[in-house]
């Protein structure tokens, strides 16, 4: 089996699963309880928070636990809207954000908020110039993803940060769900960013757990009200086994990050260079600094993406049509649409997404299968 769908989800790491299991068995107290079981659970919770903060280079009290990327995005966007609506109702985001962001914004629009959706160029990147132009006196939030989940474009966060330094009151959010462990942490955790959201299952932690970084001085409203956990900002009994497992997963992810990223980049480059030799292949992801090392998006003209996914699946090779979230809805990719790729081509798009466990041998095998499929489909189409 070859698993090339790591942007959809990664496989939980064995050591991480062990942590989940052991913590469930041994440290099952509620961190809010006063007795020693509670105290013990609280100790582990805070150690996990500290470890995550250390790995991200921030303070422990800036780390909040969520149920994942979707909650994190919803929280930052709606929490900012609730907290800051008296100062303004204008929000800026890119047009290629994840649905967790776009649909949150759509809800806010019904409540009278105004959203400027920044266009992207043919490569899927937003332009800092467009962003600077879009800023208004009533802008309260800028939300731009770190890495596009469909084509892998890395957005110019440092340039955006530079612009936003002139507007210190605007909340600046980075959805970094696809960006963690890919060698671009210094871009994501830049010194102007206020909120960053992560999801555990994208880096071999369990599903249903995520991280929101919030800079100390920033305020947002809670979406989960209740028992007052997470400093009153995110109530609900802490998912301790998942939190500890995520802390471990992040530690493992960060070990030898550079080597792992280089390996993924090398595999991606190999696949890219092989694939573009085929005349009917259109490549949307590039091999350079502005693209993440693990995502490759392309089409075989005239063959529906779904067909290719199933053809590979028959050989136990797992890939995806653009994003997993939209793949069952038979809608064309939002990112490719925004990149002004004609609909006929965009419906053919498929995505290969790597992680540090993938090998060059798998890539060779992938290309062998691809070659057979290509010729089979080319024959039928012609």
């Amino acid at each position, binding site marked *: 089996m070859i698993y090339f769908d790591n942007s959809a989800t990664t496989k939980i790491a064995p050591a991480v699963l062990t*942590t989940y299991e*052991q913590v469930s068995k041994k*440290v099952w107290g509620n961190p809010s309880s006063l007795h*020693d079981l509670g*105290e013990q659970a609280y*100790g582990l919770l805070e*150690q996990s928070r500290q470890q995550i903060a250390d790995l991200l280079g921030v303070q422990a009290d800036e780390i909040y636990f969520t149920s994942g990327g979707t909650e994190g995005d919803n929280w930052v966007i709606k929490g900012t809207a609730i907290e800051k609506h008296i100062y303004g109702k204008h929000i800026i985001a890119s047009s290629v954000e994840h649905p967790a962001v776009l649909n949150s914004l759509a809800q806010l629009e019904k409540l009278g908020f105004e959203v400027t959706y920044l266009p992207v160029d043919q490569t899927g990147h937003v332009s800092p110039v467009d962003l600077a132009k879009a800023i208004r006196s009533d802008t309260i939030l800028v939300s731009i993803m770190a890495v596009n989940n469909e084509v892998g474009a890395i957005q110019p966060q440092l340039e955006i940060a530079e612009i936003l330094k002139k507007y210190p009151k605007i909340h600046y959010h980075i959805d970094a769900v696809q960006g963690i462990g890919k060698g671009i942490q210094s871009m994501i955790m830049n010194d102007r960013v206020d909120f960053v959201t992560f999801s555990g299952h994208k880096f071999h932690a369990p599903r249903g757990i995520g991280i929101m970084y919030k800079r100390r001085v920033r305020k947002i409203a809670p979406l989960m009200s209740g028992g007052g956990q997470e400093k009153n900002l995110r109530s609900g009994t802490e998912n301790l086994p998942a939190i*500890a497992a995520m802390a471990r997963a992040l530690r493992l992810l960060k070990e030898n990050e550079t080597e792992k990223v280089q390996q993924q980049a090398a595999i991606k480059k190999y696949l890219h260079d092989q694939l573009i030799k085929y005349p009917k292949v259109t490549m949307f992801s590039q091999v350079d600094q502005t693209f993440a090392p693990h995502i490759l998006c392309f089409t075989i003209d005239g063959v529906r993406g779904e067909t290719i996914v199933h053809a590979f699946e028959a050989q136990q090779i797992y890939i995806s049509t653009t994003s997993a979230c939209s793949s069952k809805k038979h809608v064309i990719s939002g990112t490719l649409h925004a990149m002004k790729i004609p609909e006929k081509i965009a419906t053919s798009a498929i995505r290969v997404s790597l992680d540090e466990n993938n090998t060059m041998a798998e890539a060779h095998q992938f290309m062998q299968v691809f070659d057979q499929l290509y010729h089979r489909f080319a024959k039928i189409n012609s």
Partner: protein
Amino acid sequence: MEYTEIMVRYGELSTKGKNRRSFIDRLAFNTREVLHDFEQVIVKAQRDRMHIQLHGADSQQVMDRLQQVFGIQNFSPSIRVERDLESVKQTALAMIKEQFQPGMTFKINTRRSDHDFKLDTNQMNDLLGGYILDNLPGIQVKMKDPDLILRVEIRKNGIFLSGKTIQGAGGLPVGTAGKGLLMISGGIDSPVAGYLALKRGVDLEMVHFFSPPYTSEQALHKAQELTAKLALFGGSIKFIQVPFTEIQETVKHDVPEGYLMTVQRRFMLRLAAAIAQKRDALAIFNGESLGQVASQTLESMVAINDVTSLPILRPVVSLDKNEIIEIAEKIGTFDLSVMPFEDCCTIFAPPAPKTKPRLDRAREYESRLDVSGLMERALAGIKITEIKADEKFLTEEQPAFSEFL
């Protein structure tokens, strides 16, 4: 520098006449206790100096501990070399070089305990001074008040060089001034009172009242960890925990609110006095500071002191809160003390205690209680443990997590 030995100079001891030997022995004992976890270290106490042989132990860690031991005036880390002039010259130069800044002056100060050595002190001073002058351009000799003093000590078993002197904690060796009991609650004041008592050489034992379930295990652990901090100043300390629940419940139930605090304190003192008698302690120490809380007025002290004729000593009685906090921070107890666990002093605190309780009233309310029965049962439940320097109590379960993360 890889030091081989630390030479310790005694503090006030020189004035102690015939008791000198017992002071020195006690200091050596305390030093060994404080360094209990450095197994290879050997402490040798002689009449005028103490020598701590490191045998590879980390000299900085050992010196950090030594700096807190009462009875040590100052100490010098030193290096032992063979009785061979060439190695003495090399090491002397290296030690001076380590501290030398342009423009500095120095002198060599030789002592001989071995008078058979081939050079006398002046010849040794000349030889080493000359060698350093020749090999370290810019340095100058100055006899009065030089920047650097290199001490050279010639002994039968080698030549010892040391280039700096580090201030110790002063005071008297703990245990040379008799035994006392400290009433330790877990707050800021009592550990500071304990520190000041230790400084004057008192051998302290801790008395801690705990009232489960009104006070938590963590409150007990906090008092134990504070004790471990104090043990850094003189060696391990006995920790006596006294069950106080029944007394607190009875007093709460049967005594008018205004006198609750007074009667409760009378019980604490009575228990402390009974323990002192059993354990041959000569005084009781506590952290009371005049006027700080309602129970710390002179009237209140009169009403409380009534139950014993032992001296009740209050080292922080006239310090301001800020001054107490300053000491607590210096001795490393402050952060522990402010951890928010209920202790036996706060748990039944009435909203409006009498600031001027009357002794006759206190006696009268108390006479309605079965004092001797309550005392007997509390004393029967006492538990005594030995607490070592810097032992941990609050965080013992923490390391287990490393396997998860």
